[in-house]
């Protein structure tokens, strides 16, 4: 794969449309979306509009459930989780922008279960960069991508709501 630069990064909007079409045949009338802050929450919000889901989107911030709390402490910007619907017995689609080690997904699933017992939880992501550290796989994914060491894939959002990809450096090691 060629080096990813601003010019070679794929169009996140197009990927969003593809992800929506993957999900569409599997939706049931009571399916609800839960986005992981912040990128996943943006993607979930857009998917809701594209798919015409009437239920409000849930958002979760997994800071209180992270397994690296002892090393890294509490995130400086924790946002309140907000699940505006009954979780008990409901099919849920957990949405994130980038899937990596799987630790965030693990934390999000744990958090969801503190709201109730969902009928089913599936995972939908725009990008999967591999290198999993837990047995977690996405049910829906548009882009499988390899990144170099220290490279980070970041989803950005313009004021208009349009989503785009950018590359960053992860210096946290």
């Amino acid at each position: 794969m060629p080096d990813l630069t601003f010019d070679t990064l794929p169009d996140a909007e197009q990927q969003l449309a593809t992800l929506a079409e993957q999900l569409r045949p599997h939706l049931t009338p009571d399916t609800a979306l839960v986005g992981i802050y912040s990128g996943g929450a943006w993607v979930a919000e857009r998917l809701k509009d594209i798919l015409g889901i009437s239920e409000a989107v849930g958002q979760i911030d997994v800071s209180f459930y992270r397994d690296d709390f002892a090393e890294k402490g509490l995130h400086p910007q924790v946002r309140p989780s907000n699940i505006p619907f009954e979780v008990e017995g409901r099919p849920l689609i957990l949405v994130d922008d980038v899937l990596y080690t799987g630790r965030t997904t693990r934390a999000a699933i744990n958090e969801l279960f503190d709201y109730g017992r969902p009928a089913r939880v599936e995972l939908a992501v725009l990008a999967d960069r591999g290198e999993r550290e837990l047995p977690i796989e996405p049910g829906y994914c548009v882009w499988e991508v390899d990144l170099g060491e220290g490279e980070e894939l970041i989803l950005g959002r313009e004021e208009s709501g349009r989503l785009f990809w950018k590359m960053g450096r992860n210096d946290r090691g």
Partner: protein
Amino acid sequence: MAELSVNAHMNPQLGANGKLQHLLSTEGLPLEVITHILDTAQSFLEVSDRDVKKVPLLRGKSVFNLFFENSTRTRTTFEIAAKRLSADVINLDVSRSSTAKGETLLDTIDNLCAMHADMFVVRHATSGAPFLIAEHLQRIGRDDIRVVNAGDGRHAHPTQGLLDMYTIRHYKKDFSQLTVAIVGDILHSRVARSDLHALKTLGCGEIRAIAPKTLLPGYLENLGVKVFHDMNEGLKDCDVVIMLRLQNERMNGALLPSVGEYFKRYGLTPEKLALAKPDAIVMHPGPMNRGVEIDSSVADGPQAVILNQVTFGIAVRMAVMGILAGN
């Protein structure tokens, strides 16, 4: 009671990296730290509304509640906060056990360190006791243990100060536009002191103290607090009114003519509250003395946010313990 000597230039609350190590006082607490605590508390508030009112942040940690002075509400809210963070909570009623048998404060601490404590929540009648404990932990190489001051003498009650700030921010947003009055026994109140320092750091527009001369401390001038002896003048156009409990048990000597006289001049009645802004909120750290510093119709009225303060207090204490445990 004698004040313990505390080196005022050293701020043992903050580690070398500027991160919060202990919470001992709102004095000297940087704005970023206060803001981080209040922002984090907002997220914890939501946790208490869930089916499972618990997050796993402090799983496996032991929090010791060390109350050398009686308190039900503060101890209970700390206990609830620690339990909602999944910590193991051990309540030691020290006033009735070891201390009564003659053990010194630091011997008690050494024993609890040997029991693998992770955090001490300390209330003590002597100002500076939590500082002393924090310094001691540093000295014996146990700086992994965190100390939270839950009220020391007349000195500080930082979590109450922070929950008061949370309450004000919840209802009023921008501190720079606000006039906040603290009314009553400011001299004996560690809550007032913690509030005043936090309000100053948060850039409160105007801070007022309303009390008889005999119940005012000397430090107000340095904080730029406007002093009033007449409630009718002091309450005019206030956005926030913080009532303090008349601390009967601290009243050594005749500082006041009578409780009845006090209520007449400094008790908050609907008539006096009408002088503040129409949307002013009324706060009280509890426990309230109805008919002494506050009229029942105000305490139960639409402008009182006193019970909301209690709810916010749990979220703020969760935030403080969560941040401390992670730093």
